[in-house]
């Protein structure tokens, strides 16, 4: 906003006109952000506020009053609910580790290859597959590795004790969208590794291993960790795939919340659902608190 616009009617006092204009214009420009903030307050702040409120209060049917209580949170960290939280964290951590490693390997294979056709193909495919989650993914895997799935039938996997509706099965399915996501995240990072660094290391007599150990991985570490955190968050929040697939056979916190919400369990579980949701938000919040600074750092180094 440095250059004053020529609509000012008193040209001799440019400085003063500029100053007064700016003062008058500032609130109007600010208004552009207002709808977004109001919307976020109403449609995001209100539900989240209601969630927090419900998680820490209890309605007393006798007096009709509301009292603060820690019992819902406490119950959400006990018994089957705790098991489901741990199950979700385990599944997310495992899939995120495998996804990070495999995604990096594929990205490195793509980055070091010379064909732009391969590169574009892999990137487009990753863009699509990273979005191929939820219900359709679950059914594609049911058709492949389910009880009457094509691969199960061909390889007689059920005789080997294969079961898609299990922790291992879910891991394999989650990787189907997590690995492409990691490829998308790490290709720009690997592109940022300058060939000069590698040449410099080679000229100094470093082996390939030494290059990666002392140069490549430290530079990539923020992007790698950021990718890991992103995958963890995606896997942690995933619900539809698991819901369509395993029902209740794998304890996951998203499934427990859905059960409690849809009234599949005892009445009065809504508050526990709220408390579980709060647990999830806390975990996801911790994860994001790690991710955002890392992402900022990696963009600073690699550009």
């Amino acid at each position: 906003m440095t250059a004053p616009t020529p609509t000012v009617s008193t040209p001799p006092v440019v400085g003063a006109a500029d100053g007064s204009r700016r003062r008058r214009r500032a609130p109007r420009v600010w208004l552009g952000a207002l709808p977004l903030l109001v919307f976020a307050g109403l449609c995001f702040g209100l539900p989240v506020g209601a969630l927090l409120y419900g998680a820490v209060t209890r309605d007393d049917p006798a007096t009709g009053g509301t009292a603060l209580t820690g019992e819902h949170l406490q119950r959400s960290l006990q018994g089957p609910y705790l098991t489901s939280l741990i199950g979700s964290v385990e599944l997310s951590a495992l899939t995120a580790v495998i996804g990070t490693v495999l995604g990096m390997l594929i990205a490195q294979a793509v980055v070091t290859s010379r064909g732009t056709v391969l590169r574009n193909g892999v990137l487009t495919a990753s863009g699509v597959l990273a979005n191929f989650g939820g219900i359709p993914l679950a059914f594609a895997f049911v058709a492949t590795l389910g009880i009457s799935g094509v691969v199960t039938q061909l390889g007689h996997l059920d005789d080997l004790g294969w079961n898609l509706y299990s922790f291992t099965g879910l891991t394999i399915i989650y990787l189907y969208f997590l690995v492409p996501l990691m490829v998308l995240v790490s290709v720009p990072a690997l592109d940022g590794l300058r060939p000069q660094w590698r040449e410099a290391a080679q000229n100094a007599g470093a082996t390939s291993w030494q290059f990666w150990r002392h140069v490549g991985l430290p530079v990539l570490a923020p992007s790698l960790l950021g990718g890991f955190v992103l995958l963890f968050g995606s896997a942690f929040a995933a619900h539809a795939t698991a819901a369509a697939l395993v029902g209740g056979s794998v304890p996951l916190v998203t499934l427990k919340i859905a059960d409690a919400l849809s009234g599949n369990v005892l009445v009065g579980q809504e508050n526990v659902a709220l408390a579980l949701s709060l647990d999830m938000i806390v975990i996801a919040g911790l994860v994001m608190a790690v991710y955002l600074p890392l992402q900022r750092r990696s963009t600073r180094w690699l550009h």
Partner: protein
Amino acid sequence: MAALTPTATPAAPAPAAPRKARDGGAARARRRPRVWRGAVLFLAGLYFLVPLLSSFVFTVRIPGQGLTFDAYTGILSAEGFTESLLLSLGLAAATILLALLLTVPALVAVRLGAPRLAPLVEIVCMLPLVVPPIALVTGVTTVLRWGPDHLSRTPLYQTFLAVQNESFPVVLVLAYTVLALPFVYRSLDAGLRAIDVPTLVEAARNCGASRPYVILRVILPNLRSSLAGASFLTLALVLGEFTIASLLGFRPFAVWIVTVSGAEARMSVAVSLLSLLITWALLLVLSRAGTRASSAAAPAPPAASAPSTAPAPAASSVSGKE
């Protein structure tokens, strides 16, 4: 996202030149990476193609009866298919419109005259990432329950009912917009970062253009590829969304697939495959539109549209979270 944007391609040939010189000297060292690369890509291809191929085989082959395309031909006449798909498409259109109408003015305003709002806008847009859809829906149901419980005598109650209208649940549009905010924000932010908004606006204003004209004819055309990217991500999100819709009791596309899977397993797999193909086609169309737009968007300096992607890839997956 990376696929939507042309940056990836020009970057590729650059490292090739030095490598070629190096490889000439060390032919033996080169062979090992090549084997390694081939193996990685082959295994990855196998893992990603087998489920798609076997899903297709699953839909067309009935054991003992041979091939049939009933699962595909029956889709259109299946009960509820058209309504649920139309509902999902309508929700997607409304969500894209609402999300863009909210974020574009906010981001442009931040760049034009209210830089102090930038952190607030960023935090507001990124916060939904911390709240998984299932947590958001528990909050939404709590709020919706207030309607009958506390507000039944106030005029607000009518709003609560209207928002939950079966034929077009506005509440889903609102919830989906919240979920889409982080992705839309990142896509637009990357696009805006690549163009010099204040200079463009001043140049246009000095030429006598009105403020709305500047936004519509100067800023938006320069943002075309990030607008396309944001729309694609939102569309993919809404079409695949299951959690919120099913828990609130509505029946858009993803929920319909699950309902139909009990009786028609073959058809549910067929629809799943088709939805993947549709996503793929949309992505190709949009990336085409994005590249063409960035070469056609004359007012911007040619270099400006190129780096639009860099920070975006993290925003790429949406429905994977579902």
